């Protein structure tokens, strides 16, 4: 236990020494401050502790929409965009050099010559680096949790699910950086590999989403698209999904099956936060439609929910974890077998 504690403490010290970490933490603090500054009144909402008033007929003080807005701002904006892209990229840039630096001659020798197994060293170091993501997420979760409780009276402990979830999302990309770092001992290669891989996964996510929209969503909401003329038509009449559509979608989905579902795992937070308890089944409601005062209802809400849940939580998490396990096992094997 002392050995694990030592490596984790060292990871925290490394974290403290990285300027990028403090930049991420500062921006996260600012985002939290902005979030906490949002309030509601009878005519709408205010930002900056009342400095800027925004009128909205739906999102008003005491309404379920106000509660929903506060929740969605966290689950669909802060989580999906700040943590899901920017903070993730900054954490990756800050941490991708950890393994190559550790493996440099003179540094690895000291660690490997101590009475702890290489596997324990590797895994603990890997887990320690995940603090890069966990600390800012935890900070924002605390700010948002308190703000939500004080502002709208909703004490959502589920928000803290963002910490393990975003650590997991970060680890899905970081494991590729680790493998590259172990193989080539180069920080630049590790970063490039992770970024290229992340982009590839994102493209796959977009392709799958597009295929689902074309072959499933559009028939369900009665929309047709003419690709030759570039026009869409809304008939409002639900159509059956064609066999060809099913086959094409299955092909696209199968192509992305071995890859981790990085974006989908990020978006999972909205599904994991229990909306039913306070607000009814509004999992399919988006922030924009809510602000417009026109949240989907009836069949539209049903379709919206079906779209969000086209892949089960288990499938997204387990298939991604499987990928991570394979990549990490490969990296650990090389790390443990290598001569330094």
């Amino acid at each position: 236990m002392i050995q694990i504690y030592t490596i984790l403490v060292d990871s925290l010290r490394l974290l403290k020494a990285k300027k990028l970490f403090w930049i991420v933490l500062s921006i996260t603090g600012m985002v939290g401050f902005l979030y906490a500054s949002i309030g509601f009144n009878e005519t709408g909402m205010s930002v900056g502790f009342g400095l800027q008033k925004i009128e909205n007929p739906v999102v008003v003080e005491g309404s379920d929409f106000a509660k929903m807005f506060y929740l969605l701002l966290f689950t669909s904006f802060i989580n999906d965009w700040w943590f899901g892209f920017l903070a993730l990229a900054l954490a990756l840039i800050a941490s991708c050099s950890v393994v190559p630096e550790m493996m440099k001659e003179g540094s690895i020798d000291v660690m490997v010559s101590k009475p702890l197994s290489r596997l324990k060293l590797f895994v603990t170091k890997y887990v320690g680096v995940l603090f890069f993501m966990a600390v800012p997420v935890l900070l924002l979760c605390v700010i948002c949790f308190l703000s939500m409780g004080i502002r709208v009276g909703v004490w959502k402990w589920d928000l803290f699910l963002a910490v393990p979830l975003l650590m997991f999302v970060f680890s899905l990309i970081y494991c590729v950086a680790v493998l590259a770092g172990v193989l080539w001992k180069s920080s630049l290669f590790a970063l490039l590999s992770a970024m290229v891989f992340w982009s590839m996964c994102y493209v796959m996510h977009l392709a799958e989403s597009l295929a689902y929209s074309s072959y499933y969503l559009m028939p369900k909401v009665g929309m047709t698209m003419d690709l030759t003329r570039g026009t869409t038509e809304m008939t409002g009449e639900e159509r059956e999904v064609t066999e060809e559509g099913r086959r094409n979608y299955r092909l696209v989905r199968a192509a992305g099956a071995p890859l981790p579902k990085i974006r989908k795992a990020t978006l999972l937070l909205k599904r994991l936060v229990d909306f039913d308890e306070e607000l009814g089944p509004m999992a399919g409601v988006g922030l924009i439609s809510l602000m417009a005062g026109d949240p989907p209802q009836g069949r539209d809400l049903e379709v919206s929910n079906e779209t969000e849940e086209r892949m089960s939580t288990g499938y997204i998490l387990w298939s991604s974890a499987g990928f991570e396990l394979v990549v990490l096992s490969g990296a650990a094997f090389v790390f443990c077998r290598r001569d330094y």
Partner: protein
Amino acid sequence: MGELALDISKVRKVYSGKVEALRGISLQVEKGRVFGLLGPNGAGKSTLVKILTTIIRPTHCEGEMLGKPIGHKPTLGRIGYLPEHARFPDYLSGAQVLEFAAGLCGISPRKCAQRSAELMELVGMTDWQHKPLKTYSKGMKQRIGVAQALVNDPEIVFLDEPTDGVDPAGRRDIRLLMERLRGENRTVFVNSHLLGELELICDDVAILSQGAIKMEGNLKELTGKQTEFRIKYEGELPADMEPILKTHRCRREAGLVIAPALLAKEVMPLLDALRSKGVVISGLERRSLTLEELFLGVVGDDRPGAGPPPLKGRSKA
């Protein structure tokens, strides 16, 4: 021979590319001794130490260290190691480096704190221990490296080029430290190019070249086996002295005749011959071989970095 700290045999390391870095090394090191491993660059010194400290996997290795097979991880808790070109993270202070090294050995921070203070005192870094490493000179980092190698109170300490980048006062301190370790019945295994320094401290040495041990034994015995008498004379030597000098296998340097001999009585005929030719002898000195002379005599023309030729038709590591 007393109790052995290290007893290895047939240690081989063949790297991919069929470069044979070590070719069946056998070595015994007694407890409580300072053992020097010498050799030109690329001879395999660091490879051997790295095998003993599990950093490199041997192709073949038999034997024990502190009574346990080589590669036995828990035994590493009883050894200390300072690698060549040791690097520690710049964000740590000297004291934190020691805490980190101790923690990896399973020593709690509380226990480490006391030991750390002693070691900082020992390596002369007490005033600097809480400052970050990035403010240290190379020599100071090396002192911290030595301290971290001792943090677990080791029975064997492997020091790979411990005086690299250290000033003369620091070198003396490290030498005194090695003497102290020997006094505490610890074994010190030191690799260094600075033969003059090793000569001052080592009890035993092994000379490694091209992956094989060329000579090993007690340093005093090795150097003492080969002595010479340096006869200092005034003026010129008569031309007819040459055949006599050849007979006695002598060589000449400016104002000196150097005769290889173990005992003084062996050079008496030569002295008589010189005197009979009217040569004025102004001095006579008996001198053992220096470690450097011994080393150069053993290593000969082995070029630095010239490892053994690649293997043909043998299996990879």
